[in-house]
């Protein structure tokens, strides 16, 4: 059974996407990855609406104080095994928002991160590459 689950996760990772207080540029680039030019769905990547259906959490944004507890809650609601991709420089380290009082600075301050994807904003190709690398990592065990 484990190998069937692993196989389905590798073939078709389901993504949950969350924004934690970003400027929107990374958000629209992640959405552009869904659009016909980049089209992640051909890799079996599906965007889901609920944390309980997702394997991978893609997060953008530098994490504002108000959003931090919700980010943690979403992460906890996801079933194991779960992976987190920090998309964009703000999600990685706070990015351009240094010195802004309401920003925690990077999602690894709140939840553990599997993969960091820099870019301001992150390119859709980089997001797809990140998911592809994640699949390769899963395949290799």
């Amino acid at each position, binding site marked *: 059974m484990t190998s069937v689950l692993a196989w389905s996760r590798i073939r078709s990772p389901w993504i949950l996407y969350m924004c934690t207080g970003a400027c929107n540029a990374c958000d629209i680039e992640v959405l552009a990855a869904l659009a016909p030019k980049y089209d992640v769905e051909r890799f079996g990547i599906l965007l889901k609406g609920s944390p309980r259906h997702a394997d991978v959490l893609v997060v953008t944004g530098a994490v*504002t*104080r*108000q959003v931090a507890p919700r980010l943690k809650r979403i992460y906890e609601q996801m079933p194991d095994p779960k992976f987190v991709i920090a998309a964009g420089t703000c999600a990685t380290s706070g990015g351009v928002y*240094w*010195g*802004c*009082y*309401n920003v925690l*600075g990077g999602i690894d301050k709140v939840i553990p991160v599997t993969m960091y994807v820099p870019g301001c904003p992150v390119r859709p190709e980089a997001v797809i590459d990140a998911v592809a690398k994640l699949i390769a990592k899963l395949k290799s065990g």
Partner: protein
Amino acid sequence: MSTFNMEFIVKDLMNAFPNKILDYKFDGARSVFISIDSGILHDVIRYLKDRYDLKHIVTITGTDLLDSIELIYHLSPLDRRILVNVKVKVSRDNPHIPSVVSLLPGAVLYEREVHDLLGVVFDGHPSLERLILPDDWPEGVYPLRKDYKVEVK
């Protein structure tokens, strides 16, 4: 150019409110800053609204000048061609000023924002609650005041 001439508006205000118009300065071709006594804020805004159709409030800017807090009401007439920026000062320790929401309903969120970030109390505002700071932000701490220092790591 607006049907309303900025120099004309300034001169008219100085006639209508003698000795209460403290200063004025033109900012480019279509904007003017006018400093007034805070006691006549309501009257000046009503005057500008009734006579010159300055009903569009763009926003209210609050600045901590260390010895006082300056509020700038950025107003525009219905044809939006000019900006008349009315400046008043309120005391930093007891920053109260009458709300202008009864005259300009569009100001409702701008007053809340200034209240949140600088602690100015707009008397008569229908609901001066938190607008943008998080729920767990400490009371009495106003981030846009100069004594609030941000740690830069």
